[in-house]
């Protein structure tokens, strides 16, 4: 997909190659590449709204978007909140301090209560894989998966795609390396679809305890050597090393981890001269990413955040902005 011919003269939309038929956004596994391109395209229009003085359009006026977050996440939740408000939706936040992944009672009962309030969209983040799929079977409104266990984080996958397109104009043929806790990362799993299926040359790197062997299916290269991953890369994406998950250690210590798998200037010099650095956030500075790289001009981490709002606006619009009411 070729990206960003900005300021291009808009053509008549009478020939509509894609019709949005989706009621839910549960994962990119069942998105076609056309659908992913369509969302990015829609996000482009949304971005223009974000450059105005009055950053608001009435497209979702009177519609209710509920953020149902069972895992704490300020940044994703805020991003969805801003996205909804820019579209004039009424956004409501429910945070449920999830204890352990305990009885589904909490999820099902909460869902039914919320559904009774007739929202247009529920945005769900939950520690159990498949939670969004489960929810979508028990509510009547649309469901957007904002991260379910270690399954998928589709909006992140799409915003990563768009962020790369903005800077690199294409994804096909790029060497994109993702480094860190691959095993537990739902971001990686969504990116396999948004980047991998769009033609990127993906490298997944981490200690062997954190990179499942199943990942090497489907044309992805798996390596335990960060230098191999970074060498000649166009995009280097670092993942947060999940301290919270270390019940029985997957690696001996953070010190050892950051020495072997952290990105510093010396290792990054192996990448292409115009390579960019990404990170889904929040960053463990000094562990997976050095301070200077996090703040360098080659980091597009903040662009990812900006892009995230546009992508989420696009999805909210597509689910509830028009087609929504008729199904």
């Amino acid at each position, binding site marked *: 997909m070729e990206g960003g011919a900005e*300021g*291009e*003269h*808009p*053509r*008549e*939309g009478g020939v*509509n190659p*894609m*019709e*949005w038929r989706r009621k839910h956004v549960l994962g990119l596994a069942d998105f076609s590449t056309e659908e992913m391109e369509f969302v990015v*395209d*829609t996000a*482009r*229009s*949304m971005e*223009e*709204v974000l450059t*105005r*003085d*009055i950053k*608001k*359009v*009435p*497209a979702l006026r009177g519609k209710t978007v509920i953020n149902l977050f069972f895992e704490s996440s300020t940044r994703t939740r805020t991003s969805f909140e801003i996205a909804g408000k820019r*579209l004039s939706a009424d956004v409501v936040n429910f945070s449920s301090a999830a204890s352990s992944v305990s009885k589904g009672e909490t999820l099902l009962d909460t869902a039914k209560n919320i559904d009774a309030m007739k929202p247009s969209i529920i945005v769900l983040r939950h520690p159990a894989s498949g939670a969004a799929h489960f929810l979508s079977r028990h509510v009547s409104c649309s469901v957007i998966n904002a991260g379910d266990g270690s399954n998928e984080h589709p909006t992140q996958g799409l915003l990563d795609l768009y962020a790369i397109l903005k800077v690199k104009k294409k994804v096909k043929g790029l060497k994109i390396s993702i480094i860190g806790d691959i095993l537990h990362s739902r971001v990686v799993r969504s990116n396999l679809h948004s980047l991998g299926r769009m033609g990127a040359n993906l490298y997944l790197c981490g200690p062997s305890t954190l990179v499942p062997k199943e990942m090497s299916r489907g044309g992805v290269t798996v390596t335990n050597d960060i230098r191999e991953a970074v060498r000649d890369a166009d995009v280097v994406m670092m993942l947060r090393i999940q301290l919270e998950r270390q019940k029985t250690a997957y690696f001996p210590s953070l010190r050892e981890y950051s020495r072997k798998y952290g990105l510093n200037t010396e290792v990054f010099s192996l990448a292409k001269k115009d390579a960019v650095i990404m990170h889904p956030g929040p960053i463990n500075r000094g562990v997976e990413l050095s301070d200077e790289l996090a703040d360098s001009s080659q980091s597009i981490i903040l662009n990812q955040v900006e892009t995230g709002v546009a992508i989420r606006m696009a999805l909210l*619009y597509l689910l509830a*902005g*028009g*087609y*929504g*009411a*008729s199904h």
Partner: protein
Amino acid sequence: MKKSGKKVILDAKGVDRVVSRITHEILEKNRGAEEIALVGICSGGVPLSRAIQKKIRSIEGVEVPAGYVDITLYRDDLSRAGYQPRLKRTEIPFSIDDKKVVLVDDVLFTGRTIRAAMDALIDFGRPKNIQLAVLIDRGHRELPIRADYVGRNVPTARNETIGVIVEGEPEEWKVVLKESTPGKGE
């Protein structure tokens, strides 16, 4: 959609003459090109606004600013549309404050598109006034909206459509009137 009646209302020459007349009317009413800004409504109004911009340039020797606005996010009938309104682009790369903004569209029908366009414009700034130029006015207004400059009045039945082709070379532009199956929106 195979059509029985397909009547050419304006051929390329006819469109060109009408655009010239509208341009002269705009310049006359506003006493020149100062303070004028053109905003075409996507999609049909955009090439028309560019055509008007070009004619002003050749008549007055002045380049008036021109932009375009996509009103999809401002529609009041999204849920009823029955088809997927694809987003286009809005680009107004100049300030509209204190400008006389001339909205340009191809067909004026119920008036809802114009209402949405005005809502969008207000979010961009505070123009001195807003005027409306349309190539065709086909009647059936549902809101109290009128055009300042009209290329041609074409009274129509509800089941007829006006087809405005303003793509490609100006030599290929034309306006046709045809019967159609209802329900495809404006």
